């Protein structure tokens, strides 16, 4: 994309040709990110609607399913993600202060938190598989000793919701790696950090969705 080259004093950002100023470009990008987040929330919204419908129909089944989840692992993951949201925000804060090194460190810790989250998730999943707690028709009600014949549906929701969320965590880790790389390269400074902020908003939304998933799946019932 062609850019208007303004005087390259210090950290002046070269904004794209169709914007009036760097500020104009920044505000537009931010609106774009937020609009995209609306679509993310609506997509998960479909799952939440399905959850609430079937939770109303089969409250005991959902309670039984929730009992077989390890709330301690889920809670640890919640803490990990909340902490990663903090380090993500710190990354942006340090860039605003032109402290690229500290920013890179914060972003790296954020990625690490994402990885810890996924490792814990991996242990949770493999443990469920080991116990035979598979989704839907793959769950053997007799072998698991389930009270409710439809317990497989609870795990259908569990794997769909946490799985889609997990894919978002992986995507987020990839995106943060990309802005980390660019931070180290020196692309960002107090005048231009739009990409980091955009990725940050994505990461916060992913965390926020987990904060809804955790009580709904692990605690309710």
């Amino acid at each position, binding site marked *: 994309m062609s850019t208007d080259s303004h005087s390259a004093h210090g950290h002046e950002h070269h904004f794209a040709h169709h914007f009036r100023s760097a500020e104009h470009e920044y505000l537009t990008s931010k609106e*774009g990110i937020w609009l995209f987040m609306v679509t993310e929330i609506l*997509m998960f*919204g479909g799952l939440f609607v399905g959850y609430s419908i079937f939770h109303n129909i089969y409250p005991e089944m959902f309670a039984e399913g929730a009992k077989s989840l390890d709330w301690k692992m889920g809670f640890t993951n919640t803490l990990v993600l909340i902490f990663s949201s903090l380090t993500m925000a710190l990354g942006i804060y340090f860039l605003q202060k032109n402290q690229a090194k500290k920013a890179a460190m914060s972003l790296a810790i954020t990625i690490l938190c994402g990885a810890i989250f996924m490792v814990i998730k991996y242990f949770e999943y493999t443990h469920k598989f080991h116990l035979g707690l598979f989704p839907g028709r793959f769950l053997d009600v007799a072998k698991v000793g389930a009270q409710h014949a439809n317990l497989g549906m609870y795990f259908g929701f569990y794997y*769909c919701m946490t799985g*889609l969320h997990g894919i978002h965590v992986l995507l987020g880790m990839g995106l943060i790696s990309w802005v980390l790389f660019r931070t180290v390269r020196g692309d960002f400074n107090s005048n231009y950090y739009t990409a980091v902020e955009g990725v940050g908003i994505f990461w916060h939304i992913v965390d926020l969705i987990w904060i809804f998933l955790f009580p709904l799946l692990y605690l309710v019932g």
Partner: protein
Amino acid sequence: MANAAAHGSDKNYLNETSGIWSWLTTLDHKRIGIMYFVTVMFFFLLGGIMALLIRLELMTPGPTIMTADTYNQVMTYHGAIMVFMVIIPGIPAILGNFFLPIHIGAKDVAFPKLNLLSWYCLMAGALLAFSTLFTHKIDTGWTFYTPYSIKTGTSVVTMVIAAFIMGMSSILTGLNFIATVHKLRAPGMTMYRIPLFVWALYSTAILQVLATPVLGITLLLLTMERTFGVGIFDPALGGDPVLFQHFFWFYSHPAVYIMILPAMGIVSEVIATFSRKTIFGYTAIAYSSLGIAGVSFFVWGHHMFVSGQSATAGILFSFITMLVGVPTAIKMFNWIATMYKGSVQMQSPMLFALGFLFLFAIGGVTGIMLAVLPIDVHFHDTYFVVAHFHYVMVGGTLMAIMGGFYYWFPKMFGKMYNEVTARLSFVFIFIGFNVTFFPQFVLGAMGMPRRYFDYIPAYHSLNAISTVGSWLIATGFLIGLYTIINGLTKGEKAPMNPWGGKTLEWTTASPPPHFNFDVEPVITAGPYEYR
């Protein structure tokens, strides 16, 4: 206003750079619009051929040219192609991409790279969808209703993922347009000075952003259901197959307004220009677009009047569905009021706009009929419904697309088309359309069910008339294709403003320069300052 020709530069977006690679990597919204133009027209050709095959099969009772299985497949692909690859991307992606930034005096859309990405998403989705033609052709109909879509041994998962990717394309276009309208308007271009086409695209974009993700999760759940048997839609596992219909129509009903709102935008432009009159009720037309978009989210239940939902829900959905008629009628009356005492000129774009008014009125009125709960119970899944939605989608959207092509053709390519063949294409499409689909209202009222491969001999003559009509439509579109190709190769050089239009695109060169305007326009008045 800026006049590129006066500056002596003959560089424009078409010859700025050359080579196929410069097109495939372009970030210019006008070129991306042209790329959509070529690809969507190709899909339209494919879908159209399938439509002709369907009609040919239904010309006589009993097997005519294909087996029942093939018929189900052809019908599914016809629907899926026309909905996901032609009518939904059609106007926003082709004409919207090209003219929305120009209409508001911007140099480009807000996110040019995203714009290109959304074209690639559509292409990837389309390729994936067509790949199923070489494996197990799907036969579910474009709605993928459960439980059949879970049980059938065809490539449902591939097709559904293709639709998901194409939905992504739609979302990206939508959010790009919203950000563009909010942030990139030229100085003086207030929201109440943007052309009505932009208002229509803006309302459409809101629908694209708010409705499409719900389709996304619905299709993902269907994929999960097929691969992992999660049980959400499977009654044997405690699920509910009708929930799929609720989710599906929560998107797909607003989606029918994604299809029709941009068409209404084109009609507003064309009628104002060819009546030489300030549009009547600008704000009413603008707000009615938003009104239709808003109401569209609360009417999905009318697709499920006979699915066993509660009577209360049926009555509520029936009432809310009828509400859509209010903003729609506001538009119709305003267009007619605009023509009243105007200097109406019957050029081909105006003919298509009038064709739109006529056909869409029939489509709309029969829509109100179907919204009435007891009438729908009678007409449900008959050819009456088929005729209704073809009157809306084909009679509405495709008429407007053709009108829009002719209206903006001189601006897009800098050449004039042959007015005589353009009018001829209108005559064939308009007459052919009515010959094809009007008998289907009667067939539906007589009780012929939709989607069926065969029918009793009593329905024969009307089906035969309908099939002959489909050949007339095909002739009309072929003449239209000839007009476009002939105009591109042999057309005279177009002036800057052949129709005497007042919106911004007519103040720049034909075809427009790379950055749309040589001097950023400053807007001091509304879009249709005729008299």
